[in-house]
């Protein structure tokens, strides 16, 4: 009953988010009637997902037939939920798929392609002018934060590699790696040459 309550909350939240993308629900409608089972191996628990034109229905148990079954440990399922590239996670070796995998791949594609129109949702509450003002303010803040973090990362890298010499710089490291690669190749060649000489000098038996 506790899990059902949790799923009910997640379902409501998820469907609200899906409504923010104008293409998500029509795409999910094509999957209506399909049932996807997700079996978490550790801890052992199951979840059933039923997509349709109104969003996703989640269930802790399902008595009907299942079209696709996904088995994976919790870590892979968390990666699947959070990762941008969900298809890459689905192809990892600890993930097992059974049944019609196209259903799951289609669902993953819909979730992966989500582009949430937060401004539309904001405009319902604040009106077009308010949402435009708030949206542009938030966008400029986000841009400023992103640029500042990029600059900080570059400056920090420069300081650590060039000024304090605490770390080796990227180019210097690349040069050393190239030298090591050359050295490895030279050693391989020398090894082969010694082997050949040893074969030549071996007395005939």
């Amino acid at each position, binding site marked *: 009953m506790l899990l059902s309550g949790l799923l009910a909350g997640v379902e409501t939240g998820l469907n609200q988010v899906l409504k923010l993308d104008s293409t998500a629900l029509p795409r999910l409608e094509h999957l*209506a009637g399909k049932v996807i089972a997700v079996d978490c191996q550790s801890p052992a628990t199951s979840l059933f997902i039923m997509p*349709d034109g109104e969003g996703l229905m989640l*269930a802790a*148990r*399902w008595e009907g037939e299942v079209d696709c079954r996904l088995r994976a440990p919790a870590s892979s399922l968390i990666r699947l939920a959070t990762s941008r590239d969900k298809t890459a996670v689905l192809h990892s070796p600890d993930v097992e798929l059974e049944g019609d995998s196209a259903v799951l791949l289609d669902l993953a594609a819909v979730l992966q392609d989500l582009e949430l129109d937060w401004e539309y949702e904001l405009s319902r509450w604040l009106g077009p002018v308010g949402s435009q003002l708030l949206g542009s303010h938030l966008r400029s803040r986000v841009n400023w934060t992103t640029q500042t973090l990029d600059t900080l990362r570059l400056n920090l890298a420069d300081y650590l590699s060039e000024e304090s010499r605490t770390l080796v710089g990227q180019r210097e490291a690349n040069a050393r790696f190239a030298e090591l690669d050359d050295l490895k190749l030279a050693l391989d060649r020398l090894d082969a040459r010694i082997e050949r000489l040893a074969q030549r000098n071996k007395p005939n038996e």
Partner: protein
Amino acid sequence: MNDPRKNSDSEPTTHFGFKDVPESQKAEKVAEVFHSVAAKYDVMNDLLSGGMHRLWKRFTIELSGVRVGNKVLDIAGGTGDLTRQFSRLVGPTGEVVLADINDSMLKVGRDRLLDRGVANNVQFVQADAEKLPFPDNHFDCVTIAFGLRNVTHKEDAIRSMLRVLKPGGRLLILEFSKPSSALLSKIYDRYSFTVMPLMGKLITNDSESYRYLAESIRMHPDQDTLKAMMVDAGFERTTYHNMTGGIVALHRGIKP
């Protein structure tokens, strides 16, 4: 479960809450209760159960095994909570019938579903659970949620549901039942006979209807009795699941 006693005019009597009334009057009295509470039925359900009725209904959906193209009958469907979910599951090729004996409840349910865009695969029928106006072997799943205890002849209703189900079809009865723990039972009794009528008085200005609700729950057969009634009617693989300590139970039977 009808009281076999007869009144002075020899008409069989049945219980209406803790009172005995002639059988012919029970449906009318139940109808009065639901006419009175229909408008605020959902609000009261949420308040009195603390939202738990939504989880009980979710569990019913999970156990229904309903698929695309199925035909589902939701008896005593009230405000259409189950019908809405079934409508999503059966899709455009399926069919859901929301049946209720009470026209006030049916109107509230119909308006609510139409407001939410649920229309294509749903039909609304005013019908008595004891005499279902549907052909034999018609539905894949029949549900009755919090309705059976208000039916005068429960055995007749269960037999009627069996008749309209296809062989292999499932009957799900979601109903208040008997708590499995004595302590919970005491707390639940105190809550039912003090808080529920009080909230009924405050919100719908009708404490009697909610007193009837509490009384009718006490008069309803317990888990094993209802299971035996389903078996007697002809259901197979009959099971029940207690929820919230047995306050509510979901019975399921399969038509052979």
